[in-house]
């Protein structure tokens, strides 16, 4: 299959499936289960398609005559697309109980999920600012609505309100930035902008600087970097658990995919200008995130706050891109994978034990889980360890790459700060483990059911472990080396 075909097939599949469910949902043959499995199947098939592009190095523009070089398909895109398609698949697979038990999760929700993934696919492939923006808006808007799905819930509607309001606010910065860049470079194509930057002096790049600053602000907003990420706690809290997992794990990957592309192609020339800002942002993000995380009493909000911290870690790698391009960029990809698999697992567990209800899981609600549900407890423990960057989990390897790249770039102090933050994070992640194992709860026999969800949670946990120690020495399963190679290829395909 040619790459062009795959590049077209993946979004087309998502889109057509979305529209099919939209229509099918009106017919009487529609049941929620069918919609669910169609969506799952779509995601799985498109994941398989996308993953064909992983591990080889290629880069091509899709139908350049028609699409006018606005989208490219390369290993980078293929890698990211496979990542978040897998993420979407896992989220949905784990959220089976949620899907079944909530009446607000209608067929439109599947449609929106597919649309958002479509948006992300395009965003990842976008090589032009406006296309990227529209794709981002498609994804964002779908997510806005997914957040507000439970329209009878005060929390959900409030979260929807805040996310929409601030999202639109930040989007307008993007547009202003795009306008300024266009005013200067007379183009919105990333390659053209890069070309322009390469061939001009600083005094004729002023508006590009200002514009890229504005675009960066939007990105910072989306990845919930302080001070633009104040929404994240509210929205994560208000949204249903699977949606939170989706935002934290999947959506973020897509944002970073675009960010990385922009960074590696354009920003890298302004490295000296932006690095201090990114470093400052990373520090503030990590600091505020961990400050918020330590005081939370609800696991979900703690994970929300800690996702801010993880964004901070990734910003460390972004800051290091200028000096240690290859290792930093692949570190970001690896870290994203590490974070997303852990986040999906962790939120999935929460969703699994809340049985689709709207309940905010407190630390106390985890008490005694190790006794009643040892497998679930062990999986959650593994995810927490991975978040905390504990060795033998994939989270540690991710953190290891990031800190290494920071040191390689000469930002040892930044790496030190990252380590300090990781140290603080031990508190809130291990608190979860402590509650799982050490606290007794009155014994209530709870039937959770949904063996499939459980199976996927366990699989995620195993992946987390394998990603931490895995080596092809033992079994012939791709391990750390292979993941690393994949991210290397992805970065190299950007033509650097």
């Amino acid at each position, binding site marked *: 299959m040619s790459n062009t075909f795959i590049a077209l097939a993946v979004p087309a599949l998502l889109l057509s499936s979305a529209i099919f469910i939209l229509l099918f949902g009106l017919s009487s043959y529609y049941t929620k289960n069918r919609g669910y499995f169609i969506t799952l199947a779509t995601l799985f098939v498109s994941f398989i398609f996308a993953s064909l592009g992983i591990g080889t190095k290629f880069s091509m523009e899709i139908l350049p005559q028609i699409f006018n070089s606005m989208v490219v398909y390369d290993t980078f895109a293929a890698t990211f697309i496979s990542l978040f398609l897998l993420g979407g698949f896992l989220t949905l697979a784990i959220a089976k109980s949620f899907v079944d038990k909530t*009446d607000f999760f209608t067929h439109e*929700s599947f449609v*929106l999920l597919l649309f958002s993934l479509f948006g992300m696919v395009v965003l990842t492939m976008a090589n*032009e600012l406006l296309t990227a923006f529209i794709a981002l808006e*498609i994804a964002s*808007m779908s997510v806005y609505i997914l957040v507000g799905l439970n329209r009878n819930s005060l929390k959900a509607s409030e979260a929807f309100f805040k996310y929409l309001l601030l999202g639109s606010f930040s989007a307008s910065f993007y547009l202003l930035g795009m306008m300024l860049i266009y005013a200067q470079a007379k183009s919105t194509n990333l390659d053209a902008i890069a070309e322009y930057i390469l061939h001009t002096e600083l005094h004729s790049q*002023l*508006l590009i600087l200002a514009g890229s600053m504005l675009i960066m602000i939007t990105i910072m907003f989306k990845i919930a970097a302080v001070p633009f990420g104040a929404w994240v706690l509210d929205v994560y809290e208000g949204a249903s658990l699977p949606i939170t997992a989706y935002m934290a794990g999947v959506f973020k990957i897509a944002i970073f995919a675009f960010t990385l592309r922009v960074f590696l192609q354009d920003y890298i020339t302004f490295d000296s200008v932006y690095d201090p800002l990114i470093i400052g942002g990373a520090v503030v993000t990590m600091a505020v995130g961990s400050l918020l995380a330590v005081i939370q009493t609800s696991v979900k909000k703690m994970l929300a706050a800690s996702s801010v911290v993880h964004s901070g870690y990734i910003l460390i790698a972004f800051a290091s891109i200028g000096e240690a391009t290859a290792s930093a960029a692949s570190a970001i990809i690896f870290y994203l994978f590490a974070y997303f698999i852990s986040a999906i697992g962790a939120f999935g567990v929460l969703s699994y034990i809340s049985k689709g209800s709207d309940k905010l899981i407190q630390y106390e609600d985890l008490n005694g889980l190790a006794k009643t549900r040892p497998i679930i407890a062990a999986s959650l423990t593994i995810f927490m360890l991975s978040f905390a960057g504990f060795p033998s989990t994939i989270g540690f390897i991710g953190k290891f790459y990031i800190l290494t790249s920071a040191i390689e770039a000469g930002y040892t102090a930044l790496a030190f700060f990252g380590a300090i933050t990781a140290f603080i994070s031990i508190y809130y992640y291990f608190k979860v483990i402590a509650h799982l194992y050490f606290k007794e709860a009155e014994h209530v026999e709870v039937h959770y059911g949904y063996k499939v969800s459980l199976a996927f949670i366990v699989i995620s946990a195993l992946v987390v472990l394998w990603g931490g120690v895995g080596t092809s020495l033992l079994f012939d399963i791709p391990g750390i080396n292979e993941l690393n190679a994949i991210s290397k290829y992805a970065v190299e395909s950007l033509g650097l």
Partner: protein
Amino acid sequence: MQNEILFTVLALIAIVSSIVMISAHRPIDSALSFIVTLISIAALFGLLNASFLFVVQIIIYAGAILSLILFIIMFLNIKDENLPDEKYKNRWLLATSVIVAPFSAILIDLILRSDIATNSVPSESFGGIKDVGLMLFSKWILPFELVSILLLVALVGAVTLSKRSE
């Protein structure tokens, strides 16, 4: 020269009416002054020979969107006493203006310092529907298609959110 005068007048109208918009107590007042802003911006489009966009601006913005807002305002029928009691509104406005001032000042300074103006002479058909249409369907076909999906998403979303639960 004539253009400059017109621009100044329209710009002043746009700015004043937008200031009125953000400072009016009742939303209906805001909406009405926002219409003035939109129309003055549309007029500026016209001044720039963008005739098609002029039309679009009037129809979609001043027409559709603003009607929708007015409709919503009427529909929700918020009484004056139910409006948020914005005691510190003016202080907020003032404070925010002070905060935002450096941002605008810096941007304006950068714009003034930059070398962006090419002062190309536009062709006859510039800004017309054909010109824009050709561009839309040739170079910008992909964003255009994507926007249609975006609208679909918004549509689905609006329906999902607004319908009464069974």
